[in-house]
């Protein structure tokens, strides 16, 4: 690990100011950042410890939703009774990820910023445009079983690995961000992560020194909340395909539907056309196939991950059957 200065901040504005220096990074839970620093894959010259700046509570918002402070741990978020009762898909997604130890450390803001698990990103001896822009992508034509089938570019086929953000995308949560001089901006989770394009080193829209302060959940969405994660082990593994679904039925028809997908792209994938197709329709296999057709219209396998295309279709159909079926 490269040497760095350590600064503990006690206040969000102070933390943002301290992070304005080039090469400074925030540290919260640190479970991904320190992992990467040990391998010299991230080399900040200054760490701003934000663990004691507050922002560690879940509070009601004026419109009936919730503010989740950026330092609320994954464990606390998943166990919060309001989240368990009203935003079950979010609790389920968080509990499907990592281990008990990691969830106790990992934070809401940090989880949004976690980096890909592409094998080549983690291997300093191999070219990787995300780690070293312009060096090439080893995953194209290499081992790419876990890689993207949607929205990838010639420069990068990495996936965003998380679960929490997939549920937040289905719920249409917002990320509240504080910048220099107290500037606040709000960005939908659906737009927070970006596609790789020709800048795969940029995972998301955060500018240097900007601090995520909260994630805002809208008022509770009624209906059935499902998070289904398909992976190589039953626990403690990243998603090959995951789906967050919030679907409400009324008189045999789909009254509302909001779906988001993990493991398929450089960001949690949300396609409003899928939701629009489903709303107002009676559930049927043909309808679910049409939804999968929309999802996978531009899907592109890279060899090792070709299986994700039929797997995504089957998983989507299974989730929709469960979401629209009789409650057991």
């Amino acid at each position, binding site marked *: 690990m490269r040497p*760095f200065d350590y600064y503990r901040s006690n206040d969000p504005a102070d933390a943002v100011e301290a992070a304005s220096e080039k090469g400074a990074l925030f540290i919260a839970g*640190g*479970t991904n950042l320190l992992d990467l620093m040990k391998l010299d894959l991230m080399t900040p010259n200054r760490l701003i410890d934000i663990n004691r700046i507050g922002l560690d509570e879940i509070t009601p918002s004026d419109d009936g939703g919730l503010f989740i402070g950026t330092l609320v741990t994954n464990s606390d978020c998943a166990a919060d009774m309001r989240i368990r009762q009203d935003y079950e898909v979010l609790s389920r997604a968080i509990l499907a990820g990592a*281990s008990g*130890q*990691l969830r106790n*450390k990992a934070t809401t803001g940090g989880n949004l910023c976690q980096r890909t698990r592409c094998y080549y990103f983690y291997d300093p001896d191999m070219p990787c445009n995300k780690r070293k822009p312009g060096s090439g992508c080893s995953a194209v034509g290499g081992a790419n079983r876990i890689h993207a089938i949607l929205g990838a570019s010639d420069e990068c086929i990495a996936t965003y690995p998380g679960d929490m953000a997939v549920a937040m995308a289905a719920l249409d949560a917002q990320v509240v961000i504080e910048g220099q001089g107290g500037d606040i901006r709000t960005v939908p989770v659906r737009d927070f992560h970006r596609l790789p394009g020709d800048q795969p080193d940029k995972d998301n829209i955060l500018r240097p020194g900007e601090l995520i302060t909260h994630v805002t959940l809208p008022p509770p969405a009624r209906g059935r909340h499902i998070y289904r994660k398909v992976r190589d082990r039953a626990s403690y593994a990243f998603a090959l395909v995951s789906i967050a679904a919030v679907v409400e039925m009324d008189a045999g028809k789909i009254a509302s539907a909001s779906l988001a997908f993990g493991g398929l792209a450089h960001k949690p994938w949300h396609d409003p056309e899928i939701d629009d197709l489903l709303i107002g329709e009676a559930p049927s296999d043909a309808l679910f196939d049409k939804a999968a057709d929309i999802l996978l219209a531009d899907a592109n396998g890279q060899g090792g991950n070709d299986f994700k295309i039929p797997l995504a279709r089957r998983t989507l159909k299974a989730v929709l059957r469960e979401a629209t079926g009789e409650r057991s």
Partner: protein
Amino acid sequence: MKDTTLRINGEERKLSADTRTTLLDALRNHLGLTGSKKGCDHGQCGACTVMVNGRRINSCLTLACMHDGDEITTVEGLGEPGDLSPLQAAFVKHDGFQCGYCTSGQICSATAMLEEIKDNWPSNVSGSLTGEAKLTLKEISERMSGNLCRCAAYPNIVDAIREAAEASS
């Protein structure tokens, strides 16, 4: 160098170390507490599990200087020869190990995990998120999935945890 004060197993310990020092390295190399083990050093195996302010974490994935004033419990703080904690005694009784390298992490993790169950935290395999947390085989396996045992002593580890939990409830 950074000065840090930790409360470890009820005792105040002062540390002056490079900012890069992980909590695990501080415990093992600076403070002589070698019960916590270094397996993967990347948060994947759980051998380094300790409790910070009552919660289990991977001590390899956090910096000692981030924990100034925090309450740390290591396996040395749970019990000692002749005065084992119920979980430690149950691991011995059920032969919950072979080589023993993962054992202190397993025991620290299980100690905190039983508190999480008492606090009624749900898990990925809980049928209902709002019902009572139960200590079934499936629940124990899921909740302990952050602790690997390369000798695969899992059945005996689960038996030990179940017995210790039943004895305390």
